[in-house]
């Protein structure tokens, strides 16, 4: 069983929903990332999603885009991100780590080289934002032959044909984008989310996570009641941004938000 599957199975046995924080690797500088990952785990993260900086992130809103920009100022590339995961893994053998990023850096590294190095570094899953299964041309097959889970996004506008197709190739969990638009957008319609989740669950037994638009403990708890995992990104990254000049204070600020969310979700 993969680390991701194992973690979800354990949570299910306890009747709990997974809490998945997202941060961008190297934001605001590469020195703090591994330490932040450990503190997120301490604050209640069940799984960590680590963004690979990309200069043209077309599916991200300004908050996460600026995070990429801060990391790229320090020239944080895919190689560095894998090194960070390896350093994290040496201390924490249990918490699954998923990389989220865009196709081009992976292509430049080479699919096979990436799959091998990522698995060796202790990465568990990979979410490539801009590669629908149709355009796989090699990456899909390479990843399928590896131990990495392929995480896919689904959107409110995804048709049921689309959902079916994605669920056929998805691994680890399925990630439902709860609001239209880019990361960091607002207006979460819970009933609509719930309906869509049932539609997705017809096609897969994988856990379904919900992200985009989860800002605070109350929304985390509300979404936690209907989803298998709650992903929180922009809310954390905007705190990183606010403290970019005082990086030693970031861990505490992120922990505070995450602890509140964890608590609200467990009480819900």
């Amino acid at each position, binding site marked *: 069983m993969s680390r991701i599957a194992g973690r979800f199975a354990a949570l299910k046995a306890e009747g709990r929903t997974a809490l998945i924080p997202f941060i961008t690797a190297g934001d605001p500088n590469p020195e703090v990332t591994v330490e932040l990952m450990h503190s997120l785990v301490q604050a209640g993260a069940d799984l960590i999603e680590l963004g690979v900086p990309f200069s043209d992130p077309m599916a991200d809103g300004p908050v996460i885009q600026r995070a990429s920009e801060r990391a790229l100022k320090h020239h944080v590339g895919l*190689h560095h991100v894998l090194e960070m995961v390896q350093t994290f893994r040496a201390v924490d053998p249990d918490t699954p780590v998923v990389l989220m990023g865009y*196709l081009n850096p992976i292509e430049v590294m080479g699919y096979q080289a990436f799959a091998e190095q990522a698995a060796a570094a202790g990465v568990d899953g990979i979410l490539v934002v801009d590669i629908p299964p149709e*355009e796989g041309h090699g990456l899909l097959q390479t990843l399928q032959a590896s131990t990495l889970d392929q995480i896919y996004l689904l959107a409110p506008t995804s048709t049921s044909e689309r959902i079916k197709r994605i669920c056929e190739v998805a691994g680890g969990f399925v990630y439902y984008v709860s609001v239209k638009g880019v990361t960091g957008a607002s207006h979460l319609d819970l009933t609509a989310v719930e309906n869509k989740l049932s539609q997705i669950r017809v096609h897969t037994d994988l856990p379904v996570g919900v992200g985009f638009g989860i800002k605070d403990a109350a929304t985390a708890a509300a979404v936690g009641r209907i989803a298998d995992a709650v992903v929180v990104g922009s809310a954390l990254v905007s705190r990183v941004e606010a403290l970019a000049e005082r990086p030693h204070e970031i861990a505490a600020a992120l922990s505070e938000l995450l602890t509140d969310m964890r608590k609200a979700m467990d009480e819900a």
Partner: protein
Amino acid sequence: MSGHYLKKHPDKNGWYGEYGGAFLPPQLEQPFAEISEAYDRISLSADFQNELKYIRKHFQGRPTPIHYARNLSDSLAGARIYLKREDLNHTGAHKLNHCMAEALLARHMGKQRLIAETGAGQHGVALATAAAYFGLECEIHMGEVDIEKEHPNVVRMKLLGAKVVPVSFGGRTLKEAVDSAFQSYLKDPVTSIYAIGSVVGPHPFPKMVRDFQRIVGEEARAQFAEMTASDLPDHVAACVGGGSNAMGIFQGFIDEEEVTLHGVEPLGRGTKLGEHSATITYGSDGEIHGFRSLVLTNEDGQPAPVHSIASGLDYPGVGPEHAYLHKIGRVLYSAVSDQQTLDAFYKLSRLEGIIPALESAHAVAHAIRMAPEHPGESILINLSGRGDKDIDYVADNYGYNV
């Protein structure tokens, strides 16, 4: 090549050989599928075609003429140089050809708002014009660097009623303007449509913009035959940023093997990454902005900062069809520097009384370079736009060349 190139390319999923496709996040799949479906359904209808024909003639002022550049040709004592005068198209560039059609499609689809990026501001001005014509809202994303450099076009867009959104991240030029426009479109794909500015982006845009620019090649072919004793020019040349004006004129000649097609890229200040924007000459296979093509990236796979004296060519990707035409050898791609471009800019102004856009001056520079080696032959250039937008920039930075 056995004829009917255009019918055979792209395939139904938007592939030109190994380039093209649609590399979209799921939030964008459905909106692009909708555009694709609407394009296939509406664009060939008699209503659409007739309305576009009317607009081309009575609003855009088409056909634009071909001009024989006699003084320039004589000064080079080589090939005869002809100019397809897209600078005389309304708004001063070829961009209006696809903008009017994109806006017409938007209206047929019931959209209320047009969103796009712009580099030099030509696409922005053209789209703002189309929006005004059809009574649609218009939002143009433009890098802060370009806003400064292309001030007259910013004023024009605002006068035409468009909202200009300054883009302040990254290199603050065309690449970032595309990111910003995509993000805005993602927020509201129901009432808006992304009207991309060149033969780039996910399918169906490279095909759609190509089709809408076809008029240039069709006209040019007929006009050239009428004006000269020969049916076809020996060479056809155009600058390539994203590649829309080049695809426009190439389409008139692509099935004719005896016509040599030249794509001219910006070599900027030099051959090092960051100094130029010559994607076909120096790029490698990759993905950017939702399509697969040649891309200029650094060793980490990040699309690289690029430079050209012409803002409209300042892009680290290139239309997938150009990557393909390069691969199969149908089009010859080469690059000219900022300096060669400036020389051509001054030369065409003095000798022909035509101030070209700095983008178009790249194609002129290439013709000037090759003309002496091809006596007795003819070179047809797509003069994609006029240089009014560039005069202050050139005069302030490089003087009058007296």
